[in-house]
């Protein structure tokens, strides 16, 4: 059967195997721009793939984007797929994206929690965490966004393995988290770290584990507001901008706090749209509108990062 990335339906939710297979098609269609790299395996042994968009060079300044660390937030993984295709198809025609990719790389981890994603497709649509076994408990899984070494175990994370916000036994205990940590640390030249979640229409920056302002809070706030303005221009979706602690709640062990403390200044987290009616069950016909508006914000942040090297 002839493979084609053009017949893929971006306006639908797909199981993990379909997305992984589509990644191969994307790479085949854009061999000079996209590579699929395995960054490790999940707890249940599934490969974790990152798509790398690069026009050459070694360890260029790079932008990290991950989606779907919470498995039930399906519109985030779907947005990741659409975004990957958008980057590949707009390279060479979109002047600013093309210019960015001349000097920077983009890494996109579409399925940041593969085991959880499969579990949400096969057994429990409401599953959020990883699928690791917890010693001394019958409850499985750790909240992979409470497992990073950033105020680990502090307020806004649970010590109870049965809780959806269980932080895990130790920082980076989850192999899915550790795989990303290893890649980012080994690379050493990421300038931006963006995590895509759903839902509630927020664009956030550090910190979550403390309500104190990050050193660059004013700049991050300004970048965030500009990005949200672009996002809202497409469909009028309203977003709030602020630090995690101040616009949602204090939450320790989060990924963008870790990346920021590692020195990646432009660290952001999105909570995508839900229209106020569907929560995690956003209908598939809203995937493309969601991804399209998110892309405007993502591109705005990426352009800013490109123009403000440090």
């Amino acid at each position: 059967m002839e493979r084609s990335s053009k017949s893929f339906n971006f306006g639908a939710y797909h199981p993990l195997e379909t997305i992984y297979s589509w990644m191969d098609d994307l790479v085949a269609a854009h061999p000079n721009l996209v590579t699929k790299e395995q960054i490790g395996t999940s707890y249940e042994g599934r490969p974790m793939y990152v798509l790398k968009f690069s026009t050459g060079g070694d360890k260029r300044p790079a932008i990290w984007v991950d989606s779907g660390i919470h498995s039930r937030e399906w519109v985030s993984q779907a947005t990741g797929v659409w975004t990957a295709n958008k980057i590949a198809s707009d390279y060479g025609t979109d002047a600013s994206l093309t210019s960015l990719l001349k000097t920077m790389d983009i890494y996109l981890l579409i399925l940041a929690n593969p085991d959880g994603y499969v579990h949400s497709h096969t057994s429990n649509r409401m599953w959020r965490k990883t699928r690791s076994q917890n010693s001394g408990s019958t409850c499985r899984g750790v909240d992979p966004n409470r497992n990073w070494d950033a105020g680990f175990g502090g307020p806004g994370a649970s010590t109870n393995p049965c809780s959806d916000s269980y932080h895990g036994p130790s920082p980076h205990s989850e192999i899915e988290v550790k795989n990303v940590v290893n890649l980012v640390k080994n690379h050493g030249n990421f300038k931006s770290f963006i995590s895509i979640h759903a839902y509630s229409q927020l664009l956030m920056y550090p910190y979550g584990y403390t309500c104190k302002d990050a050193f660059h809070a004013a700049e991050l706030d300004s970048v965030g507001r500009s990005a949200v303005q672009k996002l809202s221009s497409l469909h009028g979706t309203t977003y709030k901008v602020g630090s995690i602690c101040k616009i949602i709640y204090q939450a320790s062990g989060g990924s963008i706090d870790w990346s920021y403390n590692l020195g990646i200044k432009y660290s952001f987290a999105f909570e995508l749209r839900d229209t106020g009616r569907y929560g995690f069950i956003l209908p598939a016909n809203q995937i493309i509108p969601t991804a399209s508006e998110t892309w405007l914000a993502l591109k705005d942040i990426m352009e800013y990062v490109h123009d403000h090297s440090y």
Partner: protein
Amino acid sequence: KVFIGDQVIRVNVESEEQIRLLRALEQDTYWDLDFWLHPVNTEIPVDIRVPYSSLYAVKDYLRAHNIQFSVMISNLQELLDEEKAEMEENNM
């Protein structure tokens, strides 16, 4: 098919006292509630997936404390069934 009759209810929190009462509800594991959005402040709504078996008791609790709520999703399983059918159709 474990979400038959489950509802997602939305509370537009009006006061610190309501936040306190909702936090108490969140701490109570007996009703097996799944807080999609947590009680934090009066600017962000609280969304709670309530299992069918706990619906009556939870709504009673909210009414007893004069906490206004609306039903965001009236039967979660119906939405999931639609989602699944759409995925299967797309797969074909």
